């Protein structure tokens, strides 16, 4: 399949679910999908198109939270980024870890750093932050308060 055929196929297959389609350059495509359609779209790209999952990158865009799932089809040097925008109040999107084992750790990381819930994840506990880190404090959120100097001193750091 050529690059155009792949993109045309994706557009047709997920016509209802694609919210935005940005063809940035010959090597980069950004596709925004509805959060509900993430798992079927990612599964199709990973399993059927034989793409490689690079990583997901979460981000706080002030009005909403978003996650980009980066896939690349190596034979045609094309990087497809699936974008989902999530509500700040109750950010949740279905887990990919059961389809792609490589997505397990990054979902744990996004969960603790950005506070996004991944229903269906097999084992969603902390990856990087220590056990003493307070619950409900997410360092990569924009409203995150800088380190409390007193708290650091009291812990003897």
């Amino acid at each position, binding site marked *: 399949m050529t690059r155009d055929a792949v993109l045309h196929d994706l557009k047709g297959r997920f016509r209802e679910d694609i919210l935005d389609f940005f063809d940035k350059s010959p090597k980069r495509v*950004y596709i925004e999908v509805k959060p509900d359609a993430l798992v079927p779209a990612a599964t199709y790209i990973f399993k059927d198109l034989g793409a490689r999952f*690079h*990583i997901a990158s979460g981000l706080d865009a002030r009005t909403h939270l978003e996650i980009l799932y*980066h896939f690349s089809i190596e034979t045609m*040097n094309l990087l497809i*980024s699936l974008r989902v925008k999530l509500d700040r109040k109750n950010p949740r999107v279905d887990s990919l870890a059961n389809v792609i084992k*490589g997505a397990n750790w990054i979902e744990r990381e996004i969960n603790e750093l950005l506070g996004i819930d991944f229903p269906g994840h097999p084992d969603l506990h902390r990856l990087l932050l220590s056990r003493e880190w307070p619950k409900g404090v997410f*360092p990569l959120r924009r409203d995150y308060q800088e380190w409390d100097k007193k708290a650091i001193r009291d812990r003897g750091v």
Partner: protein
Amino acid sequence: MQKSVISIGPFHPLQEEPEHFLLTVEGETVVDVDVEIGYNHRGIEKLSERRNFDQATFVIERICGICSTSHPVAYTRAVEDIIPVVVPERAQYIRTIIAEGERIHSHLLWYGLAGHFLGYNTVYMWMWRLREEILDVMEILSGNRNNYAMFKPGGVRRDINADDIPVALKKIDSIIPTIDRLKKAILDDPVLHARLKGIGILSKEEAINYCALGPTSRASGVDRDVRKNAPYEAYDKVDWDMIVTDSGDVWGKAVVRLLEIYESIKIMKTCLQQIPSGEIDLKLKSIPPGEGIGAHEAPRGETFHYVRSDGTNRPVRHKVRAPSFMNLPTCKATVPGSTISDAAIILASIDPCYCCTERMAVRSPEGDRIYTGKDLIRMSREKTAKIKREMGIP
């Protein structure tokens, strides 16, 4: 049989970096493994968001002492992808030369550590001795043994002197016979065959599902290399081969790394001979709003950076994905079923990223005196004799 849990780490003499392995064993056999990381979490992604685009290069160069090239290459490529621009050809060659030098010394470092994990310290001594020679080449070219600080968005920070190129080429040629000798010694060594063959097998399906990268995937028959799949810098202007084997065991990973050293030497030499003249920097003034992705094949696999800009002089979001992040979870597939003694080398076979910052300083003759190797041996003997005298040993 009753199960018991062996905890290795987070601080353990065999580990150069803190990480915590929990091996569940039945007798001598490992039935499950769990990894806990986060002891080295420094919040660099957050730190990078408070620096401007030029300063962030220095912060991420210090993510790792070994991969001090791969993160800046991926980051600068991500920033250039926002605009998008292509850097001048001479800068591309300089980036390739430095990146390949790093691959050679990193693979030699892994060989040394692998020998150490097997209790085979001769390999460790050989390899780290040889690694010094490569570090000297890097010092000739960049001025630094590590943390080369050669990169900036839009090009490279410093040029390579024309006078240094023949010196570096001569030095590289002089170490090839040593590597040849070591290659024969390793490939013919019955001890290494016995210890490495058939253990820790990662199947091709598992390698794809775990999204394994670099030598870990290439040893399992997955022909995955960013330098070939998505050529960048000077990699498509040079003739070289991707090394792939399909055995999937630790031996396969060792062979891939060994043969990659030769490919890297080939790339480095060709680039040094062919390097074109011209500009080395685009002198970027500002970064427009947008998002960019940069990837670079580091010694351990693909390093992946995602940068978003809002038009100010700082990144709004900078995501760093190191190759070990994807390779480490494969231990769930490779370690169960092996014996405890093999677990250490299987866990080490993916080359989890170690930090090495050791550096010997030689100061100018006006300052302190310089000690040669002979002086150091003489001083060591004198010290030994002194201790013996004090302890009353004849």
